[in-house]
């Protein structure tokens, strides 16, 4: 009885009123309305996976934010480099994979870290290792997809890249612009303003406006939240609009729990006050978490599969076919392909030579005859 009630509730929530009345007319109940339920069950059994990349200079609070987002401690025993070791540092790619579970739903989370980005004195092309890594994952998936045995394909493609913009400047810096332009067509970029507790609310607003302007100006395609359907209720639409106007999110992370207003919360303790990470009036952490994990995680995966991966695949195939065509022309014998005017000339030449040959042969026969006559 309970299951049927649940099913009916689910159906009512998901279907529009029109169909509901139709169902009310029909006395018979078919039952495919349980499909969402089945999908739900299967996906819980299968488990989910998600790959998140974090990029930005050292000291922007990337590790702290990841810890705060997933409420774990991913970065035990991390060794940070000294300033002189970083003068000529190259960018490394480090993956951390963890399995986390919540209410029976399993998530295999991979965090791709990029230590060394933007730290050296000369940062020319410092994003190259990162673009190479992303391409490598695409290539791997492409190969697996085209293989014969496709049962256990591991999806290591990067689904989302959080880019940390320093709050100390007046907007985007050249290295930020170059990085985002190199990556915006390979991965979903979500720009964040890091360490937002050094900006007053006015300053945050100014910086966000400035960054949005510069993103438009430089033509950087950051991840766009999908438009909500026109038949959603007003409250949802309002929330969605607020979310969109809030980008880029100004975030604060914390590894420590402090006591504030009688509760124990994640925060940062200062002599002049306590910054609460989950307080919406302090920073946009909650918005980021909700967006990234609670509502748009699957959309990020979809965009990666449908847009970025497909772009890569199309490009790859095009390159392969053009290379093939080039090789063909060099190997096969010459006049298979229809050639243009130069051949007409050679034909004429051939004709001339033919005629000359004929004439010479005639002369030869004549001479032979003459000789024959003489003999006689």
């Amino acid at each position, binding site marked *: 009885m309970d299951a049927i009630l649940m099913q009916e509730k689910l159906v009512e929530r998901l279907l529009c009123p029109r169909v509901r009345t139709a169902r009310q007319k029909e006395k018979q109940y078919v039952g495919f309305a349980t499909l969402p339920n089945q999908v739900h069950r299967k996906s819980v059994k299968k488990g989910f996976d998600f790959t998140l990349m974090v990029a930005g200079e050292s000291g922007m609070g990337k590790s702290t934010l990841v810890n705060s987002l997933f409420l774990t401690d991913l970065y035990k025993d991390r060794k940070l480099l000294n300033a002189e070791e970083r003068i000529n540092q190259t960018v490394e790619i480090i993956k951390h994979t963890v399995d986390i579970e919540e209410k029976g739903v399993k998530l295999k989370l991979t965090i791709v870290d990029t230590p060394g980005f933007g730290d050296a004195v*000369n940062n020319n092309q410092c994003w190259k290792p990162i673009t190479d890594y992303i391409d490598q994952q695409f290539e791997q998936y492409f190969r697996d997809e085209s293989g014969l045995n496709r049962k256990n394909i591991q999806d290591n493609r990067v689904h989302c890249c959080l880019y940390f913009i320093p709050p*100390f*400047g*007046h907007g985007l810096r050249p290295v930020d612009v170059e990085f985002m332009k190199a990556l915006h067509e390979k991965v979903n970029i979500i720009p964040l303003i890091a360490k937002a507790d050094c900006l007053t609310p006015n300053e945050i607003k100014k910086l966000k406006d400035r960054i949005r302007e510069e993103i438009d100006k430089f033509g950087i395609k950051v991840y766009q939240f999908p438009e909500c359907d026109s038949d959603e209720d007003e409250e949802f639409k309002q929330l969605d609009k607020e979310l969109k106007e809030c980008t880029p999110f100004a975030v604060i992370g914390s590894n420590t729990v402090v006591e504030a207003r009688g509760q124990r919360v994640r925060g940062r303790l*200062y002599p002049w006050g*306590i910054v609460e990470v989950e307080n919406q009036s302090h920073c946009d952490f909650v918005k980021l978490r909700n967006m990234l994990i609670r509502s748009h995680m699957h959309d990020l995966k979809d965009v990666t599969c449908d847009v970025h991966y497909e772009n890569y695949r199309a490009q790859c195939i095009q390159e392969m076919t053009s290379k093939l065509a080039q090789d063909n022309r060099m190997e096969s014998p010459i006049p298979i392909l229809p050639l243009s005017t130069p051949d007409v000339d050679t034909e004429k030449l051939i004709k001339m030579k033919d005629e000359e040959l004929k004439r010479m042969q005639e002369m030869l026969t004549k001479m032979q005859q003459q000789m024959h006559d003489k003999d006689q």
Partner: protein
Amino acid sequence: LLSLILSRYYRDCEPCIRNLSLGGHVGFDSLPDQLVSKSVTQGFCFNILCVGETGIGKSTLMNTLFNTMFENEEASHYQNGVYLRPRTYDLQESNVHLKLTIVDTVGFGDQINKEDSYKPIVDYIDTQFENYLQEELKIKRSLFNYHDTRIHICLYFIAPTGHSLKSLDLVTMKKLDSKVNIIPIIAKADTISKSELHKFKIKIMSELVSNGVQIYQFPTDDEAVSEINASMNAHLPFAVVGSVEEVKVGNKTVRARQYPWGVVQVENESHCDFVKLREMLIRVNMEDLREQTHARHYELYRRCKLEEMGFKDTDPDSQPFSLQETYEAKRKEFLGDLQRKEEEMRQMFVNKVKETEAELKEKERELHDKFEQLKRMHQEEKRKVEEKRRDLEEEMNAFNRKKVAAETLSLSQPLKKEKDKKK
């Protein structure tokens, strides 16, 4: 200045110094006051260089330190290189005039390739030293009137990452530490909590020490200020917060930054080290900074420069203006050198011209010879052709004669035949 005069005096009459006791009040204890009143009327001059990334808070800190709004526009992040922007202001407090020059580094830390970022800064500092040196070496000079633009203090703004210095910071400070007094400060310090700040300061100082970067140490040899200076030395680098906005706290209005979670007061010592910086920089050690710049950094520059030019230090009892004379001698030598080189070049030029002329003449002669030869050949041919023509003509004549003879013969032949027939 006074100590210099005294030490010179003592040196000159080394063997016979006696300490005398005075019978009454003479009055030379007013000497420092005379010095002070002279320097007050002269006015003071102070030059600050602010080095740090765009947007790190250099202009705001200057405004906060001197409690005025110096005009400045926000710099852009897209400069092609680093350039320095000096601006001079005249300030007055009580009856003391201060000619303050603030030099800003625009575009520092913005480029993707920052290997040459330190160069414009070093060049600027050297140029100021050079200008002073030139003035010092002039024959008619007016040092007391000279507007001293040498940098007395470099405030290096460190970004509050909380981990350590950036690679650019290390490289730049190493290049600057022998040329200018450096005080490193942690900018925008309201983003670091107390425990993180402590670790951060220790890390920065240890990195500076292990890389041999010499920052300015507040002097501890003057008993009046040695204690406070020593304790301040332990607080380096200062973690500062700047603000020109005023916020009402309690029943006072203070300069502060207002956040949703609290108010950071600039002049509250438990919030940041701004007060310490102001004390040290302006109220206690400004004069020492100027002295260090002149006595240590400038002298080092001067020595290097003069050694480069080939001067050597002569022994103490040579004539006082040997520097000037050697300079003149060097100059003459240099000019002589120059002239000689000019002569050489001229000579070379003349030689080359002669050579080319000779070559051209040679070529001309050859050409002429060839022409003659060709002419001769041509004449020879002409003659041959003439001969042939004559032969041909002769032949033709002969042929014509034969023809005529043949014709007459044939004509006379039928006549003969007729004659025979008639016979």
